[in-house]
């Protein structure tokens, strides 16, 4: 497994959140990174056991952009940043190195970054 992280939406406010050693953080820069299947899956299992905190946690693939991990999928980068048309809105507003890397990375328009994308509808 390549580099991965666990993301979800906060149940109460719908904000994008990332798993970080047992808690949820709002900045992708603070997300816990996994480079093996087992710990990533274990984190996802723990995340799924928190249905009153988050909605629909899932693993996302990461690439490196100038040495900085960023989501492979453009959709996930937009989630981690905020609307591209409103740089003052969302998490991108505070700027920083990781935000720059997220903006600089290319490709993965929607579908290629999410692990386990093809799932059976329940």
């Amino acid at each position, binding site marked *: 497994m390549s580099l991965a992280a666990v993301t979800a939406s906060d*149940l109460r406010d*719908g*904000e994008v959140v990332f798993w970080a050693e047992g808690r949820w953080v709002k900045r992708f820069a603070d997300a816990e990174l996994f480079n093996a299947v087992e710990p990533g899956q274990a984190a996802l299992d723990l995340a799924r056991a928190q249905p009153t905190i988050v909605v629909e946690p899932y693993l996302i693939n990461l690439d490196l952009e100038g040495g900085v991990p960023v989501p492979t999928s453009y*959709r996930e980068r*937009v989630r981690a940043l905020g609307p591209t*048309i*409103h740089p003052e*809105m969302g998490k991108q507003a505070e700027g920083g190195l990781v935000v720059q890397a997220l903006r600089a990375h290319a490709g993965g328009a*929607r579908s290629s970054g999410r692990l386990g994308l093809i799932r059976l509808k*329940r």
Partner: protein
Amino acid sequence: MYRYDAIDRSVIQDRSAEFRDQVERRLSGALTEEHFKPLRLMNGLYLQLHAYMLRVAIPYGALSSDQLRGLARIGRIYDKGYGHFTTRQNLQFNWIRLEQTPDILDALAEVDLHAIQTSGNCIRNTTSDPYAGATAEEVDDPRVWCEAIRQWSTLHPEFSYLPRKFKIAVTAAPQDRTAAKVHDIGLVLRRDRDGQLGFEVMVGGGMGRTPYLGTTIREHLPVQSLLSYLSAILRVYNRHGRRDNIFKARVKILVAALGAGEFARQVEAEWTTMDRVAVDLPDVELARIRGAFSYVRFVDASPVSSSLEAARRADPTLGRFVRNNVKPHKIAGHAIVNISLKTPGEVPGDCSSDQMDAIANLADQYGYGEIRVTHEQNLVLPHVKLDDLAAVHAGLKAAGLACPNVGLASDIIACPGLDYCSLANTRAIPVAQSIAQRFSMPDVAESVGELKIKISGCINACGHHHVGHIGILGVDKKGEEFFQLTLGGSGAEDASLGDVLGPAVAYDQVTPAVDALVQAYLRERRGAERFLDTYRRVGLTPFKAAVYAEAH
């Protein structure tokens, strides 16, 4: 306009209280997300990329000034100070918190608004002509029939769990401003030779991944039979519509599979055997509804306004505004004023809370307190005196809303796209902004004339790309945003679905490609032809040559 009575109010208040309880149970864990999701969707609450999104119903696109102020207030308190008018005449708030949603529904109920019928597999909010009650073209006021449909369809027990969502449009004018032919049911009011009002009933139109134009199954349905006939159509759909495959569940697929003739036969069979009296609107109720729409007492005004003419001479921007954004009214001395939410550089359909307040104030001062929403994501003041046009223009200008581009190349429909929407493949808004910038010089836009550019960020087609004179569809091509261009679509009375121009182009090639299409049109244009007319006459070839010659 129609004012809620005690029954209407109790329905939405009850619904709001019910949702408050459901949210509490979700937050406590008593309801799982799986159980809660359909409940929140029945109240227009989606979970999007950055937050929850609340879609508020604006029945047939008609708002009072108080309602618009109510929306402005919600935008200010619960969102980031703006809202987004959609291609179904609704309004979406993009930055909503689940825990505050019950309070928002209460705030909506205070101004007789709600979020029912904006999501889920029910009969959705009915689309109608934003010029209803104002244009001389119409044979009747379509809002009367939309309101009847609203009362009949809201929380209808038999039609709340359809195979898929169901959209109805009603127009009463020959010029179709509702995109009736790409609705599940399109209703066109007409008078027959004897002067009797009836509906042409079209079924099975739609966009999305399998676009169809509606087929007429009844040329002239007597108006008093509207609700029973709609019931018959929905019963046939409910019985035979596919529930096994979401992509084949819309009524358009059923109509195509059965054939329009067979579908019509089954509808007629259902209709002739059903208890129509129990369903159709009693005359007394119809009269009550009709009365609610005839309250505007237009003041006498001169058909020509000397003050307007003087103001136009003094201010060329007013002249341009009147030329492009102002349309004739049925009452002498009045006009219909379109407010563009497409100022180049802005987000199509977005309106700040301050702007909503400014429009509400103008509506109160100069427009009998009425506002309409168009499916092209603009607003309308339907009744303005010619003598007041200069003042309205000045008020709009002060609010940054006087862009004179209605119907022109920069008046672009765009879905929220990947900037907000969890279904999108690509962005749509920045594509629209770039094209609008290219045609931002008013002289350039006016020299090109009517040009409807419509952009969708995925195949679901919320941006109506299939019916754009130039349609733009975002696709994910090997992980990059690419855009497929279609030409020759129309959502108006001359409805047609666009033809694919050729291979999709990259994000940064869309505006140059649209520019090349426009240049090709200007070369080929004869006389007063619109872009659409020229395309229909000459076909794809010169446009294809222009775009792909430029691209390579």
